[in-house]
């Protein structure tokens, strides 16, 4: 068996930072040392000037298969994930059909294994068809390996149903994840409710529509004691509510998407649907609160909400175009560029913290130690590059960052001991 050597870099994991080299044999780390001399037949990945970290885990990606393969497939999305440094991604359930049956989640998992670029973890629906009316079969789905359940794209509107969902799911040891949006307050909404929407003549998506559901669900967690995860928090008040709930000792986790700490609602001034996303881009004050939440740990994870859409759908008028933007291939760079955080904290929010929420802490986001599964990311934290969506591995092009210069780029990604990304290019 060929030995894979990662040499010349700086190792960074939950135990700190140190110069070092890693050897990988048969999918596992076989040796970690200050330096390892390459032998004949060793496959060497140069990590000079780079950070070697546990692989990243994205709690929130839309891979569109089955149902919208013209926008993304599990294979193209996995390749985008690998190029972004992710060794595991949680696939959102809003496919067609939705992830509300064992057969669909098995299909998604199998497609991920066939692509072999990262581990694709299917989420499950909270309700059948994400319709908010009838509980999905959590027991069957959990037995099929599903850990995170969500109706993402929709919030669960009915408080009684949400209470029962938590109570029923509790003993199964899974986590329910909420897309926080009180739908009655966002009818027809296109963008953040504020000064910009008033001038642009677009229906507003008020912050309170998110915050009311965050508040409701915090209280349901308090009532039931069952853990819950909040998807893509976007407002300052949401962050504050979660901060208080954590201080109260409630089993709550939260994520934020890169665009919610990078872009404001003023980007919509040109009516470009690339900037339409749900929840919407908000204000500078909200961005600052999201960043503060990441810094103090209120927000556990950076999750991309990678949402591919076929080009023609983003050429509809803003109010008719679907919400969502690509995220996998720019997440690390935006985190390094935009966040005033130590690299170790950024990697924590991209790797072992989301790995724990996704229930894969046994194999992803592991310390770089002998015997651990070799899911590793090697990135250059100071490389400047210009975003060119046409060069993305994703099947879609709906990134709002085209032309933007960012810092930090994935150089190699090692998945189950294999370099699926080598020198910035996918190997399969």
């Amino acid at each position, binding site marked *: 068996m060929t030995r894979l050597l990662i040499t010349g870099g700086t190792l960074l994991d939950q135990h700190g930072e140190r110069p070092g080299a890693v050897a990988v044999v048969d999918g596992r780390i076989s040796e970690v040392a200050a330096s390892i001399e390459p032998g004949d037949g060793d496959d060497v990945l140069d990590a000079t000037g780079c950070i070697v970290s546990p692989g990243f885990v994205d709690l929130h990606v839309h891979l569109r298969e089955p149902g919208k393969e013209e926008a993304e497939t599990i294979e193209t999305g996995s390749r985008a994930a690998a190029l972004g440094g992710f060794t595991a991604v949680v696939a959102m359930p809003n496919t067609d059909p939705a992830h509300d049956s064992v057969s669909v989640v098995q299909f998604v998992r199998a497609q991920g294994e066939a692509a072999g670029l990262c581990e694709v973890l299917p989420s499950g629906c909270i309700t059948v068809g994400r319709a908010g009316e009838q509980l999905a079969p959590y027991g069957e789905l959990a037995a099929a390996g599903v850990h995170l359940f969500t109706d993402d794209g929709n919030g669960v509107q009915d408080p009684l149903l949400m209470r029962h969902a938590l109570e029923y799911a509790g003993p199964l040891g899974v986590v329910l994840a909420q897309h926080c949006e009180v739908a009655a307050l966002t009818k027809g909404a296109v963008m953040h409710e504020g000064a910009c929407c008033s001038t642009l003549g677009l229906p507003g998506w008020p912050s309170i529509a998110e915050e009311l559901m965050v508040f409701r669900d915090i209280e349901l967690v308090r009532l039931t004691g069952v853990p819950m995860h909040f998807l893509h928090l976007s407002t300052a008040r949401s962050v504050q509510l979660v901060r208080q709930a954590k201080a109260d000792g409630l089993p709550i986790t939260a994520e934020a998407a890169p665009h919610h700490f990078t872009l404001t609602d003023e980007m919509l001034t040109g*009516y470009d649907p690339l900037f339409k996303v749900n929840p919407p881009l908000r204000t500078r004050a909200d961005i600052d609160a999201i960043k503060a939440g990441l810094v103090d740990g209120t927000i556990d994870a950076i999750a991309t909400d990678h949402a591919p859409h076929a080009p023609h759908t983003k050429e509809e008028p803003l109010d008719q175009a679907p919400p969502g933007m690509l995220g996998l291939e720019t997440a690390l760079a935006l985190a390094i560029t935009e966040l005033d955080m130590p690299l170790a904290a950024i990697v924590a929010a991209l790797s072992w913290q989301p790995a724990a929420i996704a229930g894969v802490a046994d194999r992803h986001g592991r310390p770089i130690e002998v015997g651990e599964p070799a899911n590793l990311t090697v990135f250059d934290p100071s490389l400047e590059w210009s975003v060119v969506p046409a060069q993305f591995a994703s099947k879609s092009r709906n990134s709002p960052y085209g032309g933007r210069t960012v810092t930090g780029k994935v150089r190699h990604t090692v998945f189950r001991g294999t370099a699926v990304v080598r020198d910035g290019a996918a190997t399969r």
Partner: protein
Amino acid sequence: MKHLLSISDLTPDQIHHLLELTDHMVEVSSRPIPKVPALRGKNVVSLFFEDSTRTRTSFDTAAKRLSADTMNFAVSSSSVNKGESLRDTIETISAMGVDAFVVRHKSSGAPQMITRWTNASIINAGDGWHQHPTQALLDCYTIRTGLNRRDGFDGLRIAIVGDIKHSRVARSDVQAFAALGAHVTLVAPPTLLPPSIDDWPVDVSHELDPLLPHLDVLYLLRVQRERMDDALLPSLHEYSTMYGLTAARSARLAPHALVMHPGPMNRGVEMVVDPSELPGSVILNQVANGVAVRMAVLFWLLGEGSDLTRSEIAS
């Protein structure tokens, strides 16, 4: 200038220039043969994704008085209903040779989006709740002639009353009136105001009656029945009681004050009195001025200075 998408694209000087150009067009329209060859050979296409016979007819008349060729695409007769995308529609018609599209769309921002896919000038004839710039220009022209204010609106007090939130006319008029120096007050219940307008150049009032004697212009907006469905209003009757122009309210207006409405009117809701009995009503003047203002806009974009536009395209 290549497009007219929003009043905010115009400087006060450009607004003045368009109003002066409108003087010329009023004169042309008054000729025994109200037609000049200025835009001979130009192709003006009306693209109405939302029905509006009066605006479309007004633009059509304006284009014909300038001798432009005109084509009409109504959504009901176009291939949009067959699932053709906005982009394909624009690119297909553009390929026939188009100098200007006059676009009405129910989505805010659609005219701006269309500029990506054609070299033709885009004239916004109303997009969603966003803008209706030629309406604002004709409103300015009507006030300018009605109150003899050729040099601007400094010191004029204008109240815009009604459903501001959903009104592209209000958004355009606020920008245009303020650019010319008027003092604008928006009058509506809070539910019919946009959520955040602190940076608009306006005052806000929830009461009409105290303002009436001080107004130079009372501008009424149409209030639509469907606003009750979203719990924005209790009833049209209550709206009429609080904000409708009744005989008693019109009696409190200053003798010189103008009463305006973009049409179509809701009789018995915002307009309780018969407007033909209002001495200050210039509602029909607004319609008449609409043609001249649209001639001015078409000439400005396609005639006057259009060689500049052509060189911009070439570069």
